[in-house]
């Protein structure tokens, strides 16, 4: 897992149907600094948010703000899909949102700093163009936060 050959055919076909292309020219940021000089933001598509915050809708390209000082202890998950295992997240938020691991990297001076906030999308049911507006808006916020690197986790 997740090797498609290990999945039932109906699961493999469902996942293959998600294949597509990205709009516009290929993007690439060449490396200009060491990891120890980078300020990193964590972005997940796991559909997590603070408990009580507005849940994600069935098709939703918006994002939720995860405060940088969060413990992760009060995160809920309103991801629309029921086709993945939630027990890992319920046991340890780091398995989808590795905030404690990145704090350790900062403490060890392997990463310069973390963003003041992190972000959660809900990756389901939409094609790439649906996310362009919210991601470009988020990019402007990240620049103001002096973030130069994003670490991305799916679910």
């Amino acid at each position, binding site marked *: *897992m*997740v*090797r*498609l050959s290990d999945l039932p055919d*109906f*699961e493999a076909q469902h*996942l*293959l149907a998600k*294949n597509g*292309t*990205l*709009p*516009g020219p*290929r*993007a*690439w*940021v*060449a*490396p200009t600094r060491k*990891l120890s000089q*980078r300020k990193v933001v964590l*972005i997940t*598509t796991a559909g997590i948010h603070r*408990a*009580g915050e507005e*849940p994600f809708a*069935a098709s939703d390209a918006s994002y939720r703000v995860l405060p940088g000082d969060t*413990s*992760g202890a*009060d995160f*809920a998950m*309103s991801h629309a899909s*029921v*086709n*993945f*295992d*939630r*027990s*890992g*997240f*319920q046991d340890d938020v*780091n*398995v989808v949102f*590795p905030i404690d*691991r990145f704090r350790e990297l900062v403490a060890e001076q392997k990463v310069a700093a973390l963003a003041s906030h992190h972000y959660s999308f809900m990756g389901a049911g939409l094609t790439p163009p*649906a*996310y362009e507006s919210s*991601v470009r808006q988020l*990019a*402007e916020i*990240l*620049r103001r936060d002096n*973030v130069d*690197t*994003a*670490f*991305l*986790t*799916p*679910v």
Partner: protein
Amino acid sequence: MSAIAHFLESEGIATTGISLVRENTVAFSPPRFLWVPFPLGRPLGVPSDPAFQHRVIAHALSLLERTTGPVLEDFPEDPPQVDEVAQFACPVSFAAEPSAAPESWSARLCDEVAQLSPWYAAAMAKRARTSVGILAETPAVLASELGACLDATVMLAPQRCKHLLEDLKAYYLESMAAQPGAQATQLATWMWRDTHLGAAILVLHANMRDADDASTREIAAALLPRWVIESEFARDAGGVGG
């Protein structure tokens, strides 16, 4: 995930991260991703294993040093095998045929939630966190609301229905995971096959899947995992109050 990487990178922010479905990442060809052979829902591989998680992160971060791309690399480790403990015994004596129990849906669901309560408390004590909390109400209140709607054959608003069920499922799974020997695969099978909540969701799905309203059909499609839809107990489920 590929789209977010692509748009951020086009805005000058370097990206790296985890791919769970290699074929999708090959097709989209985003700037940098590390494919991992882990189950959907576990991109860092192993909960509560910081050393393993750090190895995954370090590998993904190392891709930032590449001078040409796109980069898609494979993580070389499978997650450690978990010993399958002797058959996991559900601690609550549910009816063998949930939908055949004589009480109302409301009584059955509220009783089930109450019986799980000490295990939920044990889970909270162990983890100091819960993922229950999409909605403000307690699981007991949500179970009562769900049961009342099924008893009256009244539809919940589709989006509230979805969020209510996600909170109740989280409550059930967190409670059961507190049991010695509980395994994720066993928990999922148990919840869908042996609980009144699982039976209730099967009935809701049957009631909602052919609705005239598109949003109701959309939510119905997001109530059951595909493996449950393919299972015998889903095909046998009736609608309209079970």
